[in-house]
C-alpha cells in the first residue's frame, strides 16, 4: 500500500473513531458533542449577560418573594429524575432490552412534558402578576427580560428534546433505531438537564 493510501485509510478510520481518533468516538457522537459545547456557550452567553445585568443594577428583586421556590424545586426534581431514566434507557439499549428501553424513554418523555407544563404554569403566574418582556412590578426591567429569554430558550430545548424522545421511542419500538441513536438522544437530554442546573442555581437561588 502506498503512503498516500495508508494516510487516507488512517484518516477514514480516525474519523469513524475506530483507531487513533484523539477522542475515540464515532463521528456522529463527536458531532453531538460539538453541538452540545456550542449550544452550551450560547447559554453561557445568556448567563454571563444576566450576571452583568445583576452586578450593574443597584437593586435586584428577592427571588424568594417573586418565585414559588417549591414549584421550581419540583421542576428540578422532575428534570433530574428524567435524566436518570434516560441514562437507564441508554444502558438498556446497549444491553438490547427492547421493551425496557421504550418504558424508560416514555418515563423520560413524561418527565419532560411535566416540566414543560409546570413551566407554563410558572410563566402564567409571572405574567398575571404584571411581568412583561421589558417591564415588571419588582424593579429592574432586565429581571423579567432575562427570565423570559433564559427560561424560554431552555424550555424550547426541553420541547425539542421531548419531540426527539417521542420520535426515538417510536423508531426504537419499530426496530428502526440503534443503541447509538438512543445514546445521542440521551446526550441531548442530559445537556438540557445540565443547563437547568446552572439556571436553577444562578437565576433562582443566587
Amino acid at each position, binding site marked *: 500500500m502506498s503512503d498516500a493510501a495508508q494516510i487516507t485509510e488512517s484518516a477514514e478510520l480516525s474519523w469513524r473513531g475506530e483507531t487513533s481518533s*484523539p*477522542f475515540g468516538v464515532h463521528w456522529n457522537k463527536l458531532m453531538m458533542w460539538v453541538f452540545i459545547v456550542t449550544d452550551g456557550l450560547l447559554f453561557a452567553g445568556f448567563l454571563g449577560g444576566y450576571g*452583568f445585568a445583576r452586578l450593574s443594577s443597584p437593586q435586584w428583586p428577592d427571588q424568594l418573594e417573586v418565585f414559588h421556590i417549591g414549584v421550581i424545586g419540583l421542576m428540578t426534581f422532575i428534570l*433530574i429524575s428524567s*435524566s*436518570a431514566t434516560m441514562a437507564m434507557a441508554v444502558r438498556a439499549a446497549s444491553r438490547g432490552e427492547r421493551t425496557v428501553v421504550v418504558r424508560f424513554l416514555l418515563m423520560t418523555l413524561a418527565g419532560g412534558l411535566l416540566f414543560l407544563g409546570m413551566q407554563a404554569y410558572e410563566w402564567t403566574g409571572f405574567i398575571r402578576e404584571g411581568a412583561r418582556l421589558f417591564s415588571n412590578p419588582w424593579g429592574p426591567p432586565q429581571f423579567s427580560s432575562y427570565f423570559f429569554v433564559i427560561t424560554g430558550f431552555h424550555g424550547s430545548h426541553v420541547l425539542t428534546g421531548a419531540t426527539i424522545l417521542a420520535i426515538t421511542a417510536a423508531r426504537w419500538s419499530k426496530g428502526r433505531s440503534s*443503541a447509538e441513536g438512543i445514546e445521542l438522544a440521551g446526550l441531548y437530554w442530559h445537556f438540557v438537564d445540565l443547563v437547568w*442546573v446552572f439556571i436553577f*442555581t444562578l437565576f433562582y437561588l443566587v
Partner: protein
Amino acid sequence: MTKGSSETGYGVYWRAWLVLLALTLMMIFLDQASVSRPVLVSILLIAMLVKASVIGAYFMHLRFEKLSLALVVGVGLLVTGAILFFFIAPDAVRISRISFP
C-alpha cells in the same frame, strides 16, 4: 457507549440521582436559611459545579470516555464561560458605581 460503561448496571444511575437530589434539597434549604451571603453563594456555586460534574461524568458517560474528550468538553465550556463572565464583570461593577446627574 464506550469502554467501562458496559461493566456498570443501573445502580450507578440511582446513586447519581440520589446525589443530585440531595444536593438540590440542600441548596433549597440553605437558600431559605439565615446564612451569610458570601458563604451562601460559595456553597451554592460549589454544589452547582458538583451537580454538573455528576451529570457529565455519569449520565453523559464522560467518565467512561477518553480523557481528551472529557477535557475538551468540560474545560472548554467552564473556562470559556468563566472568561466571558470575568471579562465583563468589572465593567458591570464600574457602571453600578457611576452616578448620573
